[in-house]
């Protein structure tokens, strides 16, 4: 079953590395997407787990107008001395939808992230001409890239500035351990549904509190 047109326009599929080193960037991106009024989607059921079927991923791509693809992990892994190819594969699926899909699939827009802006020239130069931003392995840079891209592509006029998002994100992160503790959970091991749900509840609550102050 596909999502409604409205939901399609609100969904942002996040296709990024699963490693713990990347988690601070991932969590910041999820927060930024939600703070901009969009719905983050991710194949990760758990923050630290790996295998997800291609069917699930293609469904998420199909159901999202927007997708973020982080290509920053190109190094060979320690176990097999080979790089992980999942992220470029999923980017390829999204680009295939834009080129060969029908109807709303052609309206997709992708943001490609890497550590450095022009590093992709050395390993996947065919994507030149796409929207590619660097995050320098810094959550704040990733937030700014995501925010600016959503503002430009959605043409919505009420997207908050990156500094507002980061200020709120820092507050959220400082409160998350206590929130998780009260819910009898470990803030470092929250599943994606738990994390994204908490982000949305926290934003609604912070907005209400600010209005009442």
């Amino acid at each position, binding site marked *: 079953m596909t999502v409604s047109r409205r939901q399609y326009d609100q969904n942002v599929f996040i296709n990024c590395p699963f490693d713990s080193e990347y988690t601070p960037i991932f969590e910041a991106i999820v927060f930024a997407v939600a703070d901009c*009024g969009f719905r983050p989607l991710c194949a990760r059921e758990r923050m630290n787990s790996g295998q997800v079927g291609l069917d699930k991923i293609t469904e998420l791509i199909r159901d999202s107008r927007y997708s973020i693809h982080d290509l920053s992990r190109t190094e060979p892994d320690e176990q097999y001395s080979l790089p992980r190819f999942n992220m470029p594969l999923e980017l390829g699926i999204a680009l295939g939808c834009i080129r060969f899909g029908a109807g709303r699939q052609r309206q997709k827009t992708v943001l490609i992230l890497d550590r450095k802006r022009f590093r992709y020239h050395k390993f996947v130069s065919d994507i030149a001409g796409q929207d590619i931003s660097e995050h320098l392995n810094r959550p704040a840079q990733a937030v700014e890239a995501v925010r600016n891209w959503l503002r430009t592509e959605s043409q919505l006029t009420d997207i908050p500035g990156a500094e507002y998002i980061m200020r709120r994100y820092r507050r959220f992160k400082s409160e998350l351990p206590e929130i998780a503790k009260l819910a009898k959970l470990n803030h470092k091991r929250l599943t994606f549904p*738990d994390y994204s749900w908490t982000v949305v509840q926290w934003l609604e609550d912070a907005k209400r509190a600010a209005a009442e102050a």
Partner: protein
Amino acid sequence: MYAVLTKDGFISRPYLEPLGAKSANATKLQSAVKQVAALRKVK
């Protein structure tokens, strides 16, 4: 569509809840968010 932010820089639209299966811990987390917010007010 022309929309504006609140005076505190929040979107006026509602924030979007995740699609699909709701977090199994949704109620606990919602309550925890409110408790921490209440503590913040006291401080």
